[in-house]
Each structure stands twice: as structure tokens, then as C-alpha cells.
């Protein structure tokens, strides 16, 4: 008598088991869960999982900060009417240096001299068109549009798994957002510089900077809060600061508490016994 091959949880596979077959591992899991629910001591997450949750919260905060750089640049150019050329030159210089120092094969395919030339010239050509694109549209509708685009962008970029390369969709949404905002600017140079700064800050530079480095987040925070202080005043700045501190310190704890007490049990069962998303590719 030949031994049966072990049961697999695959629908499309023809197996030598009856339709109502229940695998012993499932029963084991249920039994273990029953025992677990009676014990209190086991209700704990590992330290790695906890730190992962904290990291996720922080990285989302970082994403929001990065995104806010678009608005900072826009306010700098549009509201204060400052000359955007010096920061553009400065940022381009930094980008150039970083692309020299970090030679990564996967990045070099993503960003090389040819594409940077094409990007520059395309933006130079299209800036005058972009400038006049929404002249007849009311500013309010542009602000609304950019608000929704920003929400979409933050959602998409924080839900992509790969941290190394930004996804196509998020890049596109960002470019669309920047293009929509730049159509409010008055001169061609402003439009070009704004596009360049936003793309460098949000697309190119994050791929060169290592995630673990501590210096970059500190610089970002300092820039954002000082800008908020200048623009909105210190009261608003402090309010936003406290809210973000609350978000970084308190919310992860609540989340972990919820995960241990309410989420874990269901999730254990579901995560092993239910394919949550169909895998198409």
C-alpha cells in the first residue's frame, strides 16, 4: 500500500482526500488556542514585533513629513515669492554627489544620465504649458484636487511593501500632484524649479538615503517644524508637535494592546487558514 502524499491547502490540486477532509494541524491549532485563552501569561508579543510596529508608525510619520516638503517648497515659491533657484542648485548638487558615492546596480538602472537629461528637458519644455494650464480654473478647486491627491499619495506610498524602490503608481501620483500645484505658479522658472525640487526631494533622494540613518530624520524634523513656526506661528507649531509626539509614543502602545487582546486570536486562525488576497502574478 502506497502512503498518501501529505495534504496541501490548494484548491486546484487533485488530492487523494475526501472533500470534507479536515487536516489534523487545524484541530491542533484550535486546541492550542483554547489552552492559550485560559492562560494570561502567554498574551504577549515578541520584542521584535513590538519594535516593528513602532518602526512602522515612525516610518509613516516620516512619509508624511517628506510629503509635506512639497507644500513647504510650494509655499516658499508661491506664497513668499522667493527665488527658487538657489535651493534648486543646492539640492541638485547634493543629488549629484549622492549619485556619485552610491553605486548600486539596481539604482543605476533606475536613474542614469540619460533619464536625468530627458527629465530635465521634458520639464523645461512642458513648464510653459503647465504654467498656463489651469489659469482659468479657480484656486480652490486646485487646492481641493491637490489635497485628495496628497491623501492618495500617502496611502499608496505607505502601503507599498518595497521600501527601496518607490512604486510606479506612487511616483505618478506625486508627479500629478506636483504638476497640478505648479500650474498655479506664475513664471516658467518657478514651475521648473518647483518640479525639480519636489522630484528630487521625494523620489530621487529617498532612494539614496539609508532608512536606518538617524541624521536625515532629524534634519527633516528641524526643517519642517521651523517652517511651521515661521508660517503658522509657534502655537500651531507646538500643537502639531504634541500631536506628532502623541502619535509616535502613545499610539503604538495602544495598538499593541489592541493587537494582543483583540486581534491576535482571530488573526492566528485567519492568517494560517485563509488566503486573504488572491495571488495573481
Amino acid at each position: 500500500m502506497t502512503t498518501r502524499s501529505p495534504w496541501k491547502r490548494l484548491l486546484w490540486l487533485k488530492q487523494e482526500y475526501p472533500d470534507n477532509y479536515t487536516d489534523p494541524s487545524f484541530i491542533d491549532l484550535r486546541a492550542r488556542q483554547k489552552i492559550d485563552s485560559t492562560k494570561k501569561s502567554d498574551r504577549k508579543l515578541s520584542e521584535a514585533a513590538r519594535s516593528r510596529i513602532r518602526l512602522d508608525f515612525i516610518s509613516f510619520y516620516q512619509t508624511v513629513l517628506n510629503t509635506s516638503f512639497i507644500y513647504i517648497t510650494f509655499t516658499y515659491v508661491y506664497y513668499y515669492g522667493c527665488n527658487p533657484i538657489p535651493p534648486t542648485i543646492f539640492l541638485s548638487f547634493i543629488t549629484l554627489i549622492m549619485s556619485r558615492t552610491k553605486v548600486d546596480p539596481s539604482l543605476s538602472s533606475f536613474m542614469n544620465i540619460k533619464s536625468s537629461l530627458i527629465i530635465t528637458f521634458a520639464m523645461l519644455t512642458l513648464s510653459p504649458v503647465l504654467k498656463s494650464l489651469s489659469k482659468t480654473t479657480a484656486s480652490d478647486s486646485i487646492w481641493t484636487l491637490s489635497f485628495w491627491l496628497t491623501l492618495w499619495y500617502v496611502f499608496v506610498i505607505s502601503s507599498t511593501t518595497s521600501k527601496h524602490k518607490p512604486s510606479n503608481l506612487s511616483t505618478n501620483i506625486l508627479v500629478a500632484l506636483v504638476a497640478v500645484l505648479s500650474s498655479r505658479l506664475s513664471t516658467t522658472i518657478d514651475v521648473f524649479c518647483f518640479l525639480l525640487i519636489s522630484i528630487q526631494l521625494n523620489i530621487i533622494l529617498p532612494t539614496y538615503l539609508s532608512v536606518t540613518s538617524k541624521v536625515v530624520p532629524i534634519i527633516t524634523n528641524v526643517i519642517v517644524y521651523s517652517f511651521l513656526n515661521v508660517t503658522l506661528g509657534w502655537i500651531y507649531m507646538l500643537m502639531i508637535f504634541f500631536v506628532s509626539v502623541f502619535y509616535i509614543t502613545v499610539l503604538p502602545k495602544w495598538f499593541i494592546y489592541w493587537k494582543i487582546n483583540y486581534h491576535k486570536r482571530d488573526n492566528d486562525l485567519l492568517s494560517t487558514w485563509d488566503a486573504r488576497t488572491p495571488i495573481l502574478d
Partner: protein
Amino acid sequence: MPNYIFWPYGSFFENSTVRGPRVALAISFQKTHFVVLGVCEPQYLEEINIRSPYSVIATKDAEGENWVYKVPDPCNVHFRIPKLKFMQFYSSDPISLIIPEKDVGLHNSVGETSNFSKLEEHPRYKSDNKRLSETLNIINLFPAYSRALSELYPFIQTSQKKLRDTRLRRIAAWCSSTYFYKAAAGISLYMILAICSIASLVSSLLNYSHFQLVNYSAFIQQIDLRCQQICYFPVQYQRINKKDTIQKVGSMLKQENSNNQTLNSRMPCKFYPDYILLYNTVWLIINDISFGLIFGAILTENRDFLVSTSHRILKFFLYDLLKTITIMLASNPFGIKLNAELANFLSELFLWVIEFSYSAFIKLLIDPETLSTLLTLTIYMIFLVGFSFGVSLAIDFFAVLSFPIYVFYRISSKLYHCQLNIMASLFNLFCGKKKNVLRNRVDHNYFQLDQLLLGTLLFIILVFLTPTVMAFYMSYTVLRMLTITIEIFSEAVIALINHFPLFALLLRLKDPKRLPGGISIDLKTTNSNKHTILELQNNPIKFKSMFKPYNLLLAQIRANYFSFATVRQIIRGESIMINRHKLYYVLYSALPSKPLGVRDLYKRLTIQA
């Protein structure tokens, strides 16, 4: 299954005043029912052997009221003898006012799917009334059959009437033997040939396969139609004047191998549709010319008024209105804020086209003097050849004048269509996807940064420019649809003048039996002791089926120009065109698709002579 015996209705057979024994003789072939042809007294038949198609079907005693039948389970069906002279006949299928070769095309053109028609044609779903239709053929030729019978057995009493107009016939025969008649016949034959050859030449020139002029102009289409009608006249006339058919039936019956098949093809009722079509066409042409005379007179009376009014109207619609709309589009129409640069550019482009076309030809064409000369020419033409020519010329004139609108429509629809296509593919790029042409699906693709950037920037620009292009496109589409509607409705008027089934309608009123639309068999008496008696009746053709080509035409127009499919086409930016040939193909249903060549025509005409 009962044996059906068809009795002529109301004749001597049923309520015979003559008392005494009788024998009824009937004809029947292999695949027909019995049709009673005549009666006689039984003593004649004692020494004669009745031959095969005929047989004694029933006998009656001297005192007897009822017939005694020789076949089991008899069932009487009464019918009125169709008068051949008045072209009455029975038919199980409705008479077709469309020539058969076109009938096939008409069915497939609108609505029906080919699978359904296949199912319909399957023998299982067809009622098998071949026997009945064969019997109907005998009934239709009843006088001929009964004459043949009485020639064979002179003692038999039939319902045949004597031919009376012998003197007239004699005079006609004498006339046709004179040299004068022969010369006149010859000359007219060659004249007809000459006219037909010219007409067919013109028609084939206009239908030249590489450049079909017919498709471009209503006037040329009208000329082509008239030419084709002229070409077809002699053929139709020759077909309906086949007088020999009825005489031949008798001689054929005398031969032993009388074949039903050959008889069928020579049925005179096969050519009645031709008769109706020919006289319908002739009548419509005469009508057309008389309309032309009436309208020509009216136009002549109101010439000055017409010229000045049409000048004003045309100038307003083709120049002032167009200009106003184009300028308005550039300056925020209805408060919709379009992209100023693009709107200005497009509006200037269109304004330039308007000015150019106006100064190039529209100004000249709608000048009162030109209009007046054109009107004079049209009036002369209307007097000579008919109203429809005038209308078609007006349509062509209007088409030339509305050419700028057509150009605007094409330009804006091309722009819109291109923009829509580009936006669709850029949207795929926006989502990080790419169309896979090999598998015809949309796949994920990882793009380079420069591709993404350029694509997204272009996409955003196009999205912002869409309302502007769409405003231009929609306004010119509305104008274009207006001109198309005007053209189509005037062409519908022409179609009505050219193809109205006037003759058929009047025939239907005068004598419905000439236009049978099928038969019905009703129960006549239900005397319990007697056999069941049924009555064969003719159902006249329905009015709806007389106007079938028009219904099809209307359905086609609706499908092409006033349907959701059209709206979808407009939204997609696909261009809407008038395809005249396809549209009015339905109305050529009374004409063969190719006019008969001169040589064939000559053969046909000389054989008959």
C-alpha cells in the same frame, strides 16, 4: 387524413337545377388534392375510359340530393374561381413586391441574426403544405384546366366561358400583319434598345467601381435610379406579356408526361408582381413629373421672395451663426472656463476656415443672383424630369454649403479621438500598467523614472485640456448632426416619391384578390348529416408588409443616426458619415442589382417578336 376535394364555389356544380344523375370529374396529380373540373351525365362515360390525371370523384343519383364520393373520408373545400383575366390568384405565401434576388439581402440587413434564419429554414420547423400549394396552382389555372378537359371530352359541362372578343382579335391580327406595323415595331425596338443602352451606360459610369459617384451626390443617385428603371422597363414588359402561358397548359396536359415542375415555373401569377412593380414605377414617374409641374409653378411665382429669404437664412446659418458660436467658444461659454490658450488657438483656426470658405465659394453661391440662376435652372429641370430631381439637387447644394461644418466636425473629432486614445494609454502608464499586444490584456510593468515623469506630465496636461477640446467637438457635432438630419429627411422625401407603393395600394383597395397575402380555410356549414364543408378564402396582403422596405429604411436610419450606438460613437470620437449607397440599398428592392445588357435585351425582345 381526409381526402380534400376542392369544388368551385357557386357554379353549376353545387346547386344544379338540372335534375338527374350526375358524375363529377376531378383532376389530381401525385402531390395534389382533388380539384373538381366538370360534371357530366353518367351515360357518356360508359364507353369512354377516363385517363390518368382525371378521375370520377363523385356521383349523384337522379333523386339524390347529395353526392356520393368514390374516395374514403371526403372533405369538401369550396373556392371561388379566380379570374385570370383580372389577375386574381390564390397563394399560400404573401405576394412579394420585392424582386426575389433582393429579398434575401433585405432580410439579413437589419435585426435578424443568421443563426435564427438558419433555424427558420430548417425543414423541421417549416409547415409542410407543399400539397396545398400545388393544388392552389391548379386552382389558379382553373379555366385553362377545364378548357383542356372539355377539349378532351367535349360532352363535359365545365364552367368555361366562351371567348367573345374574336372580332377584335381578328382586327389586331390583321393590323400586326401589315408592313406599316412591322416597320413601326422594328423602329421602336431599335429606339428602345438605343435608349436602354444609353441608360445602362450612364448607370454603369456612375457606378464605376473605383469611384462611385453615386455615393457622393443625391442628384447623381437620382439619375442612376431613373436609368436603372428605364433599363428594367422592357424586361418587365416582356415578362408580363407572356400570353402563351395559358394556352400551353392544355397542350402540355395532353402529353402523357405532363410534368408539374415545368408547369409551376410557367404559372402566370409568377409575373404579377412584375406587373405591379412596372405600373407602380410608371405611375410614380408620372406623379413625379406632375409634382414637378405644380411645384415648378409655385416656385416661379414666389421666386424673388424665395431668393431673398434663402439668401438671408443661408447667410445667417452658414456664416453669422458659425462665427458667433466659434467666437463664443473662445470666451468661456456658459461660464465654463476653458483653457484660454488652446481655445483661442482652435477658435482662430476655425474662424480662419470660416472666412476662407466664405470668401472662396459660399459668398458666391449664396449671392442672390447666383441663387436666382440656380433656381431658374432647377425649375426648368423640375418641369422636364420631375420634382425628385429638384429636391436631390437642393440636397447637393446644401451639402456643398455645409462643407465647412463637415470640415470642422472632422478636425475636432480627430483631435478629440486622438486625445482620448492617448489619455487611455497614459492612464495605463499612470497606474503602472502597460497593454500587452501579444496577449491583448493589460499587464504590470515597471517603468523607468523618465518614462513615468514624461507620461504623467503629459497625462495631466491632456486631462486639463480635455474640456476645451470637448466643447469644440460637441458644438460642432451638434451642428453636423443638424445638417445630417436635414439631408436625411429630404432624402426620405425623395425616397417616398421614388418608391411609394401607390399602385399596389390602389390595387389593394380595388381588388384585394390580386394581392394575396396567404389563404385561410374556414368552416362553412356544420350540418350534422352532411360532410364538413370548408371554404377557401383569400387574405389580402397586409399594409405593413407593403411598406416593409420603408420600415427597414427607418430602422436603419434610426440605428445609424439616432440610437445609443450613435451616442457611444460620438463619445468615443468616431466619425459619423452618410453612406448613401448602403442606406438606400433597401429602396432599390424593385430593381435588379445589375441592369440587363443590351445584347441580352435584344435577344429577349426579338424572340418575343
